[in-house]
């Protein structure tokens, strides 16, 4: 079996995996980082979004081996001790989550958006979130949270 090595949330991670192992399996099963979720089998729901070399990616649609040598950040790697990342804080402030299942992917995706386009309009945010499905919130408070976080992140 091939060996895959990457940096996850700032720590080196390495394991022998079957070549078909998905990045999300490596994170959840090998590293026990269960904050990254699997909500579908067609790459649509976005519950599995993580950052690979600073770019949001659906970890259910990527082999672990494709992330060999990469810097991966998951939802577990965002907060600085007790201090939440501004996007996490904004989701909490604005009730941008209910059941919490889509939340990790939603937060990771939103951080990437704000990084790319700090001045994203409400319409831009809604369009960007096409790849993240939430069944609980109706998106209203998610959009609100992302706009607030964009301000807090210097957008």
């Amino acid at each position: 079996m091939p060996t895959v090595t990457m940096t996850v949330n700032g720590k080196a991670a390495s394991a022998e995996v079957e070549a078909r192992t998905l990045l999300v399996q490596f994170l959840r099963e090998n590293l026990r980082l269960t904050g990254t979720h699997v909500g579908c089998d067609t790459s649509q729901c976005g519950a599995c979004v993580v950052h690979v070399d600073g770019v949001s990616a659906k970890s259910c649609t990527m082999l672990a081996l494709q992330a060999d040598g990469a810097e991966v950040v998951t939802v577990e790697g965002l907060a600085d001790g007790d201090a939440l990342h501004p996007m996490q804080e904004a989701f909490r402030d604005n009730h941008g989550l209910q059941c919490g299942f889509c939340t990790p992917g939603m937060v990771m995706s939103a951080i990437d958006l704000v990084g790319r386009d700090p001045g994203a309009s409400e319409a831009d945010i809604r369009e960007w979130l096409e790849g993240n499905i939430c069944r609980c919130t109706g998106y209203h408070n998610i959009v609100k949270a992302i706009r607030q976080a964009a301000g807090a992140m210097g957008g």
Partner: protein
Amino acid sequence: MPDGATGTGIGAAVKRVEDRRFLTGRGNYVDDIDRPGQTHAHILRSPHAHARIAAIDTAAARAADGVVAVFTGEDMQVGGLPCGWLIHSEDGAPMHEPPHPALAQGKVRHVGDQVAVVIAETLEQARAAAELVEVDYEVLPAVMDMKAAEAGGPLLHEEIGTNKSYDWGLGDKAAVDAALDGSAHVVEIDIVNNRLIPNAMEPRAAVAEYNEANGEYTLYTTTQNPHVIRLLMGAFVLQIPEHKLRVIAPDVGGGFGSKVFLYAEETILTWAAPRVGRPIKWTAERSESFVTDCHGRDHVTNAKLGVDGDGKFTALKVETYANMGAYLSTFATSVPTYLYATLLAGVYTTPVIYANVKAIFTSTVPVDAYRGAGRPEATYLLERIVDKAARQTGIDPVELRRRNMIQPDAFPYQTPVALAYDSGDYQATLDTAQRLADVDGFAARRAASEAAGRKRGLGYSTYIEACGIAPSAVAGALGARAGLYESAEVRVHPTGMVTIFTGSHSHGQGHETTFAQLVSEQLGVPLEHIEINHGDTGNVQFGMGTYGSRSLAVGGEALVRAANKVIDKARKIAAHILEASAGDIEFENGTFTVAGTDRSMAFGEVALAAYVPHNFPHDELEPGLDESAFYDPANFTFPGGAHICEVEVDPETGVVSVERFTAVDDVGRVINPMIVEGQVHGGVAQGIGQALLEGCAYDAEGQLLTGSYMDYTMPRADNLPNFEVATETTLCAHNTLGVKGVGEVGAIGSPPAVVNAVVDALSDLGVTDISMPATPSRVWKAIQDARA
């Protein structure tokens, strides 16, 4: 009383206690749980909608790499999955209730039906081995069309001799027929309430294990009501004594009803656990969820509304075909009967109503409660026919609604369909909704749309629902096989910290915050000193779970009663220590004071004293401070409100855009307005989804055509507007909190507002009706048909 927006008590928009763990990836969902020595299950499912199983050969699968066990229906000879609600047909006969096996017994009845379970060391091995199971199917014709299935043809369940479970009626048919005959106008409508697939974002999952040392089973499962799963599975299917079966529902990622029911997979795993001797885990793939999570709605209805010369409703007659799918799921039979026909008065004074409901088996996934459950179907029917009546009589749709509304001084109001509403002010919610929706500015907005080549419409829905399910006496009289009370325990620790044990279950609703707010205010204990424990039958004494917007109105009320008992006990302890009579002890802001003196004890001091009782009079005062209560409501609660939707339609493409959505709801007293608004947002999104986007489709052979997120349109962020949400409060008259429930109002009230808006937008083109979901192709075709 409410300590307002700055505090943490009733009425405060407290940020949620549970959010930190979800936001940092520390939630604990069932699929996150791995047990030592765990095996993995894959369920082999029927690819056919209806087939006889001539033979199953599992030899090759059993011999495959890593396989621990393979079981079929022949191995698993246990009771069927029970249905919780007995309905009687109009002729008095009990419903037909054919067996619902967890693993198929000689026949499969829908695509996705369970045929065998393969348990292996790894999931990949289980899946690979399942490919080696040889099933010899004799394919039978699928039973798809409800009216054809009623008339005859192939039978799904031969032993009952029919495809109809029951043929039920409510109301005075003769009086309704007579009133319709004498009415100035009779408005008739044919309505399809489209079949929906709930799609909680967390797929269902289960981990089951058996401890040989003490004979105990533990099941981790994605359920909204762990105690009910324990009761149904233990007592009716597997005959496991309840004290030997522990059911744990940890963090659950959304439910919307679909995780209420006892499912085959969790039953199979629990049964198999002692046979395998190791823990077993199963997690649904999304494509499995589509063919196994109970679906919702799926009604075909004809209705007639009588209207007199003054625009007053005289009678309503409703005939509905309700799809049960292949088997009767846990609550399925109550949904199109007691949760549907009893709501057909709506907010109106219609004097006589009759409903007939035929429940039909088809070769499809079982249909059961989905957010609203019966009440959205009733509301959609009523609010569409009222709009049609407005067009037919030439009365403005708002005026027609107002003319027929139950007035605020008419409560309690007895409807002709069994329910007695306790409180409400439907004019007030409509007034506020019209103001917030800027109805006055609509004409100008419509003119601007016209100028841009688009059509703009405004649609109304004034609705009521019954929730706080349920008063056990009423439910029992109507066929419920269980009481539907709730229980709570308030355990005060010696430090003054409080743990609340509740039979309600939170899967997104924020109970850890709302319930803590209630008890914080009641006991005067800081919010952060209160912890909520739920979802574990090993910890919580009993519970009926969360569905039917019942958590606060039933579970919260039980909690208040338990906390009151704590106060009573603490008062006695304080009286003993302060050497006063209990009657002289006042309790305010967390302090017990001897009336008229400065002698007092803080709540925490009493808590400590309760557990270090050096000189308690033993025959009068027990040590400890831990009280529980069971609460069984006297009546349903009746949230209601007014939803107004404004849409723009591009007549060239048929694309409908929701421009504004205003929801003004009366949910009784609001404990946490932030959470209440969030519940309404989510419900409205699901309602707009039903109205415009979501539709489950099967082909004639019973193959599911909408079996993934590529085919079933889930509402995305760019399908929805921001929502204008407000509350207008009248208090529930029969619980001390005055609360009514909010979980389902959005999904119940919104669909007809959306469809009425689309029809309104296109009415000058001659369009009078559009079916849900009003997809671009349907809207475009309706426009073309009207023009032709």
